[in-house]
């Protein structure tokens, strides 16, 4: 098989280029295993991120035969192709080969205050939370922050200020957590084109997500919360 891998050392190369490697993966190999074998036996200078190899750490998001996904969770034979083209995540600057600079992604994450805000001391026997309320959060906590959605998002492509699907889904995860007491103003910080109204609702994030988080559901949920909150405020005011 042929593996065409994008190579780019920003300090040495004028521009990115594809390098071809011949490699015959074993029957059940993933793309990550193939990349490691190519590196270990053919070209130790090849750089890519990896860690858990079981789709839970979020390190190895990349574009494989045109599709945004995790290299560790993609079986080579499922690609049904004699050629595998591997490129780094789009919408982010390449640092080296398949490694991109995730700084904008992490900055967006920090912007939404991605932490539970519960006031007061720790309750002596823990918080009481209805089983089904906690389970509503579960859709969003499977997010591994791999940035596949951010890379798939057409809004992030044209406007670097947009915080993107993962950050908004994270905010929604806290907004629906019964233990969270953040003020409405914390949601309102995302009440603009850089936040929930930036989304084009073309659902590319949902398609790209390797963990079935459906971040667009979170964006939709935040929009509803914002409208409901503002409507409530409108009617509370005396004419």
């Amino acid at each position, binding site marked *: 098989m042929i593996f065409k891998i994008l190579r780019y*050392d920003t*300090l*040495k190369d004028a521009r990115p280029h594809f390098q071809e490697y011949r490699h015959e993966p074993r029957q*059940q190999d*993933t793309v990550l295993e193939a990349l*490691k074998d190519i*590196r*270990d*036996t053919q*070209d*130790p*200078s*090849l*750089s890519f*991120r*990896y*860690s*858990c*190899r*079981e*789709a*839970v*750490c*979020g*390190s190895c998001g990349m574009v494989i035969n045109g599709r945004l996904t995790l290299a560790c*969770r993609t*079986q080579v034979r499922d690609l049904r192709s004699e050629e595998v083209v591997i490129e780094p995540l789009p919408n982010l600057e390449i*640092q*080296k*080969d398949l*490694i991109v*600079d*995730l700084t904008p992604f*992490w900055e967006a994450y*920090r912007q939404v*205050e*991605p*932490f*539970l805000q*519960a006031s007061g001391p*720790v*309750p*002596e*026997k*823990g*918080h*009481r*939370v*209805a*089983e089904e309320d*906690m*389970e509503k959060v*579960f859709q969003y*906590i*499977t997010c*591994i*922050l791999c940035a596949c959605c951010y890379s798939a998002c057409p809004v992030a492509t044209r406007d670097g200020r947009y915080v993107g699907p993962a950050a908004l889904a994270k905010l929604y995860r806290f907004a629906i*957590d019964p*233990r*969270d007491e953040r003020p409405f103003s914390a949601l309102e910080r995302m009440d603009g084109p850089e936040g929930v109204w930036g989304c084009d609702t073309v659902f590319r994030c949902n398609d790209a997500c390797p963990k079935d988080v459906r971040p667009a559901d979170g964006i939709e949920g935040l929009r509803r919360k914002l409208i409901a909150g503002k409507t409530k405020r409108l009617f509370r005011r005396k004419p």
Partner: protein
Amino acid sequence: MIRHDLLIVGGGLAGLSAALGVDPGLKVAVISKVHPLRSHSVAAQGGINAALANHPDGADDAWERHAFDTVKGSDYLADQDAADLLCRRAIPTIYELDHWGTPFSRFASGTIAQRPFGGAGVPRTCYAADRTGQVLLHTLYEQAVRRNVVFYDEWLVTDIIVRGGKIAGLVAYDLAGGDIIPLRARAVIFATGGYGRVYQRSTNAYINLGGGIGMAYKAGVPLKDMEFVQFHPTSLFGKNILITEAARGEGGYLVNAKGRRFMEDYAAKAMELAPRDIVARSIQTEIDKGNGFENQFVHLDLRHLGREKILKRLPGIRDICIHFAGLDPIDRPIPIQPAQHYSMGGIDVDAACASPVEGFFAAGECACVSVHGANRLGGNSLLESIVFGRIAGESASAYLRGGALESGGDREIAETARALMARMRAVHEREAGENVFQLLNQLKRLMSDTAGVFRDAETLRRGLDELAVLREAYRRVFIYGSCGRYCQEMVVLIEFEHMMEIAEVILLGALERTETRGSHFRTDFPKRDDAAFLKHTIFTRSDKGPVITYRDVQIGRYAPQERKY
């Protein structure tokens, strides 16, 4: 030179917990060779133990019972005062994590749910479906973001500088910048994780090379109990991805090729929920006897749990089976085999996480307090990382408050950094040589072949001989690429040097411990020998190789007895 009061190395649960435990007035930073959320803690699945007594079958649970189960599980090699501390602090720790946002699964009453786990007398393991490590790591990282903790992401620490028995600083390789960076610190906490990838078959992340443990050892910090390596009973055949103990906790069966629940022959009462050492050995014995499938695996059968329970309690396991083995556990049994999973041994620290080197602390899997002794119980490692991470943060703060003086050392640190650069240049300038990735693969095979679930004097000696050959080969190591930015060759090259130290002490410790205890099973000495070996093994480095001494175990309420399950 970058200066901090305290540097924490490792951004997994122990490192983050340490960062959250330090005095806010101190200048602290967390250094991690990967982004903290990529740390191996993220892969833990089944849960975290605390005697909350929320489960109807465990309404009378108490931290003392948790401590007893931990000590018995450890085959009595755990220090009982440390086990008490762990289990007592478990309860407020869980409530604090809940308050910080961990989405623990709930019972219908709204309390934190608990499930049965191996070696535990009652259902005591708190969880978030089967993604407990992920939610805990994200929670602690979120709290660290909230408190503006300083992070140096994607920096690999390469050297520890000790001066006059006191920590002076570190040297690190900044992967993104490609620079070697000297760092000055008055105290250092290592939270660098385990060494799973010294083995071929391991459930661990690829990054778990164990460099931190070997680096501390090379800097003169002793190691403890390194011969105790946990093999998890159920890793997915072929990939060795972890299939959580919760699969058995929720009622899964282990079945051999004859269709028999063979645990009946090994632990008739506890069955599949015996401690990990016993279950792993039972599975390996069945396979060795020819009762496995393809002489390589047995089945973990979840089908009788039903679709609904699997979807609700084990969704991550189902995903793993679908994506990595092409089967749905709702319809088909899971092929599993034992694989290296956890390092009971590690950097020798006391219950305050302090090492013999002043100002140098360690916590989590890289450390050995010891609370796990010869065999760790499932659900105790997340707990240990968080509890002792916090204790390390508190201890380091107290140490720094005690007016630890600037001991100088700028010159040594800068020299060490220069020496590293010179060494890398020399390696790079070689015309040809050994490929470090290939050496790593050889080391892994060596360890799996000679220091696995079963060992004896012959395999262990062979391991030591082969290791000596590898050491020779490493002297000819060579870097193919340019050693600039994101040079993973350089990362592995540096870590490999430390891994050889780890491999040597595992082999040697196992050879010298002529008894069987917990995870350490000597086929030539199949009985526990309390008279000679109810002791911790301590490894100290010398010019002539490791020096082994033994230290008494702290025994408290629980007198050692035979382990029956």
